[in-house]
């Protein structure tokens, strides 16, 4: 099945009065698409599930729009605006130190003032044969001079080219930093030839192109690999002068007529790319080239780039890195005043297909409309955005104990790898993804997606709240990160989603402070609060993650690259960073399996008077959750357990457990180094927090999808409702 329509919006979180732009692409041959706005209540359409429930909202945008097929043009690069010193006909030397990862993949520009379609300009590049080349063009004729020797893969090499216009010579250098002296290759420049300036920006890691019919300009021929200390000069430099610039040992004025030298080790947390020459020709990083990566001079003495920025003066460029598709908006919504806070989506229809672009509406600033807040785990949605595991990871069928099922959304991802990876995937050159952005279609964040995790699973929680008549407001992870604990003012109880795995420091700080003030937290998921991520306050809609060394199966980072570029913080699992999830919510990840889920049996703690409110209406011997849409049980998929040794506060009550009820496919994944009795299980836990607050945790991803069983009349829904209603009661715990 091929998708006929996809889209994304320019902001996932909004308040009444805010404008939200929606970008839509339709398959070729379609004439128009229709759109309206709906409140989303539930989604899962499979037999036995609540089905898609949406309520149309009149907003004025409903109607038909022209269908346009949009291209996704990815690739990271640096753009430096043109100026006199960056006119192609004034450049005589281009140099850089590079670590190419796919030198045989075809034409890739290293530094260029060149627009391929205009047949003018100059570019230091990798040519179609994998060799270093200098391309020069005079507006009519393109000449390319190469070294005749392919570049090496994943090896630091110094590369440079110069033009001596008086002598009519072009010289090229290509040399391993750790090898014997390289060779100089000279070519004759055709008599009377000179470079014509194309009037385009200088790009590092790509060549400039415009596509006016798509309202798009950016880089083509994108480079894969690392570039360090690129420089351009107005005179042909000697090898010694160039080496001085490369190694940063010589003063800059030893290189005559230096126009620019960019040091990527400066301003790492930003998009700014600093020219350290006196000319101040700073550039801007586009589409998130990876910063805070080891350069050619990494000594192994520093693991935090903030301590030795000069050793991190490289950026890793990728042809499939993407921050913003940059499509023009198809329509724009002004969120109506008084619109209830909640889950919403633009419903778009084209060629017989219906799709949804989700977004979230908060109440007006400072005016919560409920004491109950659903904290939408958008950082975790981002981490899984467009994940390719079902069809690219050899472990997929093992993990799921079943054949991978490829729906139309996966087919779109197979057809369009340029949409960029999730944080579970690698880039084309093998580098683990460091960033994930929401400014691109997110194919699995859809109400009707067959993958019942994250957004599709969390709609079981919204469905439950609506069915129980529990009014709630929503807020996204990025809102909480940006605003801190004050964003939670006025709320008494925070609900999580079913798999809130990715947390920033700001988000954890806010939850800790909320609980310290008497707040209540109902953690309705599994494998939560696990990985550190960082947002950027100057660049919305993107997270960075470094798994560091602590990952079971997903690519670890290279040594020395564990610190996040966005924040400088050490990346990895929160348990290794001193803030185990057990300390926050009483449970932490221990195992995963994807076939049958289990039910919970009550433990002695569940009869403690402190927990009586949780089990009202539940029999003493009743199994809890022996039903559900994920493996026919409430305790499963990814599960967490109670462990005082790992950080669970000793006063926590361990109420119920799935211990002993799991299949053999459940693989122990936690590292319970201190716990004498680790065991594969999900535990139900309650604990009081400071100042009258409390926490309830289910420790299972499958819990949410059990809420709707039997029309919502079941003991998982009963326990959840008991907890939420008591947590909304102001009486302190």
């Amino acid at each position, binding site marked *: *099945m091929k998708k006929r329509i996809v889209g994304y919006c320019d902001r996932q979180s909004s308040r009444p009065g805010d404008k939200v732009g929606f970008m839509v692409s339709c398959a070729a041959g379609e004439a128009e698409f229709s759109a309206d706005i709906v409140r989303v209540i539930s989604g899962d359409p499979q037999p036995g599930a609540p089905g898609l429930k949406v309520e149309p909202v009149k907003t004025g945008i409903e109607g038909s729009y022209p269908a346009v097929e949009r291209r996704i043009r990815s690739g990271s690069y640096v753009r430096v605006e043109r100026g006199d010193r960056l006119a192609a006909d004034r450049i005589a030397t281009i140099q850089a130190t590079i670590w190419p990862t796919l030198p045989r993949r075809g034409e890739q520009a290293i530094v260029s003032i060149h627009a391929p379609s205009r047949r003018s300009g100059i570019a230091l590049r990798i040519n179609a044969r994998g060799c270093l080349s200098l391309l020069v063009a005079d507006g009519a004729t393109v000449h390319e001079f190469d070294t005749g020797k392919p570049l090496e893969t994943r090896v630091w090499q110094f590369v440079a080219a110069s033009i001596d216009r008086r002598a009519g010579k072009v010289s090229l250098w290509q040399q391993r930093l750790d090898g014997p002296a390289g060779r100089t290759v000279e070519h004759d420049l055709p008599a009377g030839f000179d470079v014509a300036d194309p009037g385009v920006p200088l790009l590092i890691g790509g060549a400039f192109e415009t596509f006016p019919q798509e309202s798009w300009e950016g880089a083509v021929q994108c480079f894969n690999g690392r570039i360090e200390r690129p420089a351009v000069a107005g005179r042909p430099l000697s090898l010694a002068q160039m080496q001085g610039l490369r190694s940063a040992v010589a003063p800059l004025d030893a290189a005559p007529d230096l126009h620019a030298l960019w040091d990527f080790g400066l301003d790492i947390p930003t998009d700014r790319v600093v020219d350290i020459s006196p000319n101040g020709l700073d550039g801007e990083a586009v589409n998130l080239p990876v910063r805070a990566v080891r350069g050619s001079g990494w000594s192994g003495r520093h693991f935090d780039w903030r301590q030795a920025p000069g050793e991190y003066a490289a950026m890793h460029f990728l042809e499939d890195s993407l921050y913003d598709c940059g499509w023009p908006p198809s329509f724009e919504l002004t969120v109506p005043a008084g619109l209830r806070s909640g889950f919403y989506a633009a419903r778009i229809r084209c060629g017989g297909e219906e799709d949804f672009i989700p977004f979230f509406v908060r109440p007006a600033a400072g005016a919560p409309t409920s004491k109950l807040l659903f904290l939408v785990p958008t950082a975790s949605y981002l981490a899984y955005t467009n994940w390719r595991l079902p069809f690219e*990871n050899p472990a997929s069928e093992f993990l799921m104990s079943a054949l991978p*099922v490829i729906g139309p959304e996966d087919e779109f991802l197979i057809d369009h790898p340029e949409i960029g990876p999730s944080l579970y995937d690698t880039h084309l050159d093998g580098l683990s993804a460091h960033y994930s952005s929401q400014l691109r279609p997110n194919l699995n964040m859809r109400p009707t997606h067959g993958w019942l995790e994250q957004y599709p699973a969390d709609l079981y929680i919204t469905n439950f709240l609506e069915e129980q008549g529990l009014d709630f407001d929503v807020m996204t992870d990025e809102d909480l990160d940006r605003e801190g604990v004050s964003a939670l003012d006025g709320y008494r109880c925070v609900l999580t989603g079913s798999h809130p795995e990715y947390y920033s420091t700001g988000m954890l700080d806010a939850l800790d402070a909320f609980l310290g003030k008497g707040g209540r937290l109902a953690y309705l998921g599994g494998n939560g609060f696990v990985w550190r991520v960082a947002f950027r306050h100057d660049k919305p809609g993107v997270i960075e993650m470094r798994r560091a060394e602590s990952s079971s199966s997903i690519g670890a980072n290279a040594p020395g690259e564990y610190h996040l570029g966005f924040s400088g913080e050490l990346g990895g699992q929160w348990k290794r960073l001193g803030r185990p999830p057990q300390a926050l919510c009483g449970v932490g990840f221990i195992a995963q399996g994807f076939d049958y889920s289990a039910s919970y049996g009550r433990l002695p703690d569940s009869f403690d008077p402190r927990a009586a409110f949780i089990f009202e209406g539940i029999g003493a011997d009743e199994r809890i959750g022996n039903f559900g849409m994920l493996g026919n049980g409430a305790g499963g998929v990814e599960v967490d357990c109670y462990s005082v040794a790992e950080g669970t506060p000793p006063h926590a009550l361990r109420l119920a457990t799935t211990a002993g009820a799991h299949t053999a496919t459940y693989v122990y994944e936690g590292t319970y180094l201190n716990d004498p009795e680790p065991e594969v299980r999900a535990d139900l836990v309650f604990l009081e927090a400071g100042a009258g607050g409390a926490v309830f945790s289910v420790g299972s991803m499958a819990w949410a999808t059990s809420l709707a069983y039997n029309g919502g009349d079941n003991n998982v829904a009963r326990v959840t409702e008991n907890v939420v209603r008591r947590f909304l009661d102001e009486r302190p715990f």
Partner: protein
Amino acid sequence: MYSSFLPSQMPTPDEVGLGSTFSPLPKDLTALARRFRSMPWGPHPAALQALLQQMRSGRVQGKYALQVVVPYREWQLVRLPLERGMPMEPVEGARFTSLAEAEWAVFRLRARELFGQDLPADLAAGEDEEAAT
């Protein structure tokens, strides 16, 4: 740190039946197949789980998968792309209206590919006491 077991006190790989052939034919393939057919999603007895581990290992490129034809109702057997950017390849004549039948078809294909054994398509599903132990 000392090893928690001493090789000198362990049986040899040959003694425990870890033979030299890459894909030893399970002694009771037909029995395991009958068991798989009756419960394709498990829980599996240990011998069947081991067989499935073997069948499901290998590179992801060209592996079997099910392409949705009609959501929740109809699936086409495909082979996954040989590299990123390439299409999936449909397996001719392998379209299913039951996920269990699709799993069974792939089990049979792999029995032929790994062991050269043709299992009858209509092999009766059922418990098998020997395989279930």
